[in-house]
């Protein structure tokens, strides 16, 4: 009898597992096909309702590259995105630490200050922000674009990091302090390594959001500081005829550059936290 019940439990377990893996497979297959479809179209000369295009060409990439001077745009994009990620982590992680650990007057207000930029669309503050930036001679420069992009990125990092900081055992901080680490050292030697997966997650998400941030970038960028997304949006939303393949080629370039970062980041940091990696018993030696 109990064996039966046990089998029922195991069966339910297996069914659940199968369901999960089914969902994962379904998701991955469809997303994969979707990407392949775009990739195929971006190298197709003509693809009219058949399984595969008639012929292939790299022409769409070449012409997109030339039309948008993508070489330069990519450099700008990389610089902007890297800087935004770097600086928002630099400022955001300590801020998240304080918000997670300390109680002080005005904390609620500060939380609101960090929540608002995520919730009000840039339409509201984009133009006045750009005006301020032009007055400060920051607009049209790379620093200007970076700062503008940090407005939504920084609060984002703070909100993502807060629960990560809360998860960390305060004893470890105490130990670091007792052994002579000042706040900076405590961050560098204990918190940051322990938060690494969180930092990675926050960094990746900020990266993706920054690459995609159109309005603020456009409003404060000059002719030399446009990023890829501006070109992409132009290709999609500008008036006039544009071949779908050309848009797809742009989209592929866009994806490639984000994915490159993602893969680099994941190559070096695993999203699973160290605590669990060490304490999880190896299944078999």
């Amino acid at each position: 009898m109990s064996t039966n019940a046990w089998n029922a439990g195991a069966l339910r377990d297996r069914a659940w597992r199968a369901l999960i893996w089914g969902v994962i497979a379904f998701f991955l297959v469809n997303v994969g096909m979707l990407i392949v479809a775009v990739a195929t179209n971006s190298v197709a000369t003509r693809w009219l309702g058949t399984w595969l295009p008639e012929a292939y060409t790299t022409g769409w990439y070449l012409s997109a590259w030339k039309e948008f001077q993508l070489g330069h745009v990519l450099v700008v994009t990389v610089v902007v995105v890297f800087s935004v990620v770097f600086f928002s982590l630099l400022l955001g992680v300590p801020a998240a630490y304080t918000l997670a650990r300390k109680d002080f007057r005005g904390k609620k207000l500060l939380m609101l200050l960090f929540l608002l930029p995520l919730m009000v669309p840039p339409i509201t503050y984009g133009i006045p922000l750009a005006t301020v930036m032009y007055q400060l001679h920051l607009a049209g420069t790379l620093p200007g674009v970076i700062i503008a992009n940090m407005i939504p990125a920084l609060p984002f990092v703070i909100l993502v990091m807060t629960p990560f900081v809360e998860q960390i055992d305060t004893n470890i901080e105490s130990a670091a302090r007792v052994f002579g680490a000042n706040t900076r050292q405590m961050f560098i030697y204990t918190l940051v390594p322990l938060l690494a997966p969180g930092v990675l997650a926050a960094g990746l998400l900020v990266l993706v959001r920054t690459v995609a941030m159109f309005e603020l970038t456009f409003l404060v960028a000059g002719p030399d500081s446009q990023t890829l997304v501006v070109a992409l949006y132009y290709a999609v939303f500008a008036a006039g005829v544009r071949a779908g393949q050309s848009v797809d080629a742009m989209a592929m370039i866009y994806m490639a550059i984000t994915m490159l970062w993602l893969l680099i980041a994941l190559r070096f940091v695993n999203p699973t936290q160290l605590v669990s990696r060490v304490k999880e018993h190896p299944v078999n030696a």
Partner: protein
Amino acid sequence: MAGQQNAAANGARKNEFRQLRLDGVSRQFGGANALDRLSLTIERGEFIALLGPSGCGKSTALNCMAGLLPLTSGSIWLDQQRIDPLPPEKRGFGMVFQNYALFPHLSVSRNVGFGLKMRGVPAAEIDRRVAAALDTVQLQAHAGKLPGQLSGGQQQRVAIARAIVIEPPLILMDEPLSNLDAKLRIEMRSEIRRIHRAQGCSTVYVTHDQDEALAMADRVVVMKLGVVQQIGTPQDVFARPAKLDIARFMGYRNVLPVNVMQSDGAGVTVEGAGSLRLPGTAMQALPLGSAVAAIRPDEIVIGEGPNAFAGTVETAEYGGREWLLQVRTVFDELLYVRSAAVVTPGDRVMLSAPPERVLVYAKED
């Protein structure tokens, strides 16, 4: 850079401190006093043990000294300097945490070297000193492991090594040997004493093990419910607990209701369970009448003698060197007695206790 030099300079200065003084140090948690007006002066080179029942505020006291818990009131002084507003990293003390608090992401050797690194010690010297410390705690073989891959006792030893390697002027240890086996514990005890003496540092040592406190400490602080009960040499605290409570805690398991019949300075004669008369030692000023006598099981002697009284063995438990007996006598409670000879339940034995080891206290309310 500046920070490191500064820390080093501070460290150097603090190394020369003469005394650490706690002045009415209190700490509350949500209204409840975990530590109540602790005043204590620790001389340089002294080895202080904090002793007390679980939850009495020992760790709280250590945390306050280390600067990890803000005080609710009171102050801490290092010679003339008030240090309680200083953050922990400015105090330069070493600490063994009760729960180890190892850095989970650092290997054993980097855990141990952490404090040295923070002090800007050159890498080569760090390596040397870490190796020596790991040697002391017998963990050379595990230097490359992460804390999560160690056994409990190994983790605890890493925590000890991490604290001693920085050679701090004051070292705070919170039950540092609790997870070690007897042999290793005895070895570590003498290592800690040796290091304490060699470095000339002061040590505050929390332990629940009386033997440890007695063997290691210069002075013992006995606490209960956050309040200091007695401060004295190990012999004092052990042989002459100031209160019945402390006596109980110190292993005076036999607490018998008696009547004080006759008092003569410290020497008293008490009467228990009707007719039995025992000479004892008064630990407090005692009026004639109701009182209690406390006797340690191992100080009850089996065999005929003056003042001996009879009993029947009820249970006998093997305790390694000797047997632990529960003996029924004229008293209501069973007496706990130790016996080196084999005794079996049902045996009749004669018991007696030397008068100086029968401690008489006023009756508790």
